[in-house]
């Protein structure tokens, strides 16, 4: 048996952070799958990494910044063309509260 690392309650909390919703059955399935995956991840604790620098990007290149110049951009119509709900040049969303 794998030790329980993440509880169903925590799964509910993480789902809320990730803006996902699950039914009871899915919650149970995710809890057990995430537990077995996280249990496997514990392998990393075998390594002492206290003095190791983290790697975010593998190729060390300086920040490449483009010139701060106004260039043509996409027309508004095209940018909005994939929105399902568009009104007066804006994306339309439901009430916030």
């Amino acid at each position, binding site marked *: 048996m794998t030790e329980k690392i993440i509880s169903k309650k925590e799964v509910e909390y993480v789902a809320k952070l990730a*803006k996902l919703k699950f039914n009871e059955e899915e919650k149970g399935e995710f809890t057990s799958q995430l537990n077995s995956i996280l249990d496997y991840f514990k392998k990393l604790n075998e390594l002492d990494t206290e003095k190791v620098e983290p790697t*975010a990007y593998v190729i060390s290149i300086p920040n490449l910044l483009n010139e701060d110049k106004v260039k043509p951009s996409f027309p508004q119509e095209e940018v909005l063309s994939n929105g399902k709900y568009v009104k007066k040049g804006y994306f339309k969303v439901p009430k916030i509260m």
Partner: protein
Amino acid sequence: MTLNQLTAHEVVNLIKKRKITACEVMQDIFNQIDKVDDLIKAFLIINREEALRQAKEIDAKVKNGEELPPLAGVAVAIKDIIVTRGTETTCGSKILRGFIPPYNATVINRLKEAGAIIIGKTNMDEFAMGSSTENSAFGPTHNPWDLERVPGGSSGGSTAAVAADEAFISLGTDTGGSIRQPASLCGMVGLKPTYGRVSRYGLVAYASSLDQIGPITKDVTDCALVMNVISGHDNMDSTSVNLEVPDYLKSCKAGIKDLKIGVPKEYFIEGIDLEVKSALDRALKIFEKLGAKIEELSLPHTEYSLPTYYLIATAEASSNLARYDGVQYGYRAEEYKDLSSMYQKTRSEGFGSEVKRRIMLGTYALSSGYYDAYYLKAQKVRTLIKEDFDKVFSKYDILVTPTSPTPAFKLKEKVSDPLTMYLSDIYTIPINLAGIPAISINCGYSKNNLPIGLQIIGKHFSEETILRAAFNFEQNNDIERKKPSIKPAKHKEATE
């Protein structure tokens, strides 16, 4: 023999010599798609009319005696995670269904400038998350060598299309093996370039510090040909590196007497299929015969690659996939009461289960209180894995390993157990973590007539060297290259 069975370089040469026309080539390509794609299901979208129009343009150029670009008349399939102006791009996900990008990825523009003809977009695991193409919202792709087996993934559609002679070349993307593993399972050539070698502008992000675009082709020459076209710096991608691009086509043809090859012992452990192991042993003898020196070496942190990868990739994915909220593009849930429930319902209905699983893992790993224990820890182990490679590359030019521990597995064999599925990328994942280039080429076939691949790994920006090793192996491999005979399952049962 029909024209679609040729390689890209053969087709370009024959068009240039006026032996064949681009229109004839396109006809054979679409005939093959009509014949086999109902069985393979490599394509999500096919651009027939536009492709035929472009073929006519190429033929007009030939007629006028104009000089032809390097990929003139070559039919290309594009993984549906690379944006194409005016052509739907779904990433194999319901959440992006109907999304028509207003721009082309840099690689698309470069292919078009080189005369390539984009014939369609190919199936994939949703957002490139998977190793079998079974996670596509639009159904799985089948392996041309055995329709009951997976083509690998996540670039399964792109690879199957080339293997089934439905396209000459294709583009895939590789975050943890998604070009090389399907190339191995379908008997094709697949290259994951060095991180930064090929622009990612217009590649829909999965895990930004690992993703790379690369070619899937029928032979090494075609791979070099495509790399000549798509490599190089791009102002639109701040991680693209400004380094000169060598002529890969030219450099791959030199010999390999000077090469020192390392074979990491950690890649030949339990779990490796015996037929894969013996194919590799035989392949190493060929390298030896060509004059290369071969030695065993150790990459001690190999066993930590998989957990490191899944922590980093899922963390980055959870952040990258936050943009799918039903506002600017793609799917939006029908019913909701407010903004928050609109987000939740849209994402829950729009994403498939593997994507949700990875978003959940990544969100958890980045959440307050767990960041140091998971994400930061993984980034530190990533350093150790990268240093393993740095050390051996001070002594060796290339490493040779299997690409995948087994030949193609059966559809549904691994879907129910995510961890087992993750293990199919065990030999490819460390390469993405280190950001180095690697190529998979065919080195033989199993008793069941399934292709087996070998992986050649090089140091940063050494695509020239790995292509050269691959080309020399390909030219001297004494096992005859085969093509799959695409047989529907029922027919197969009847003959057995």
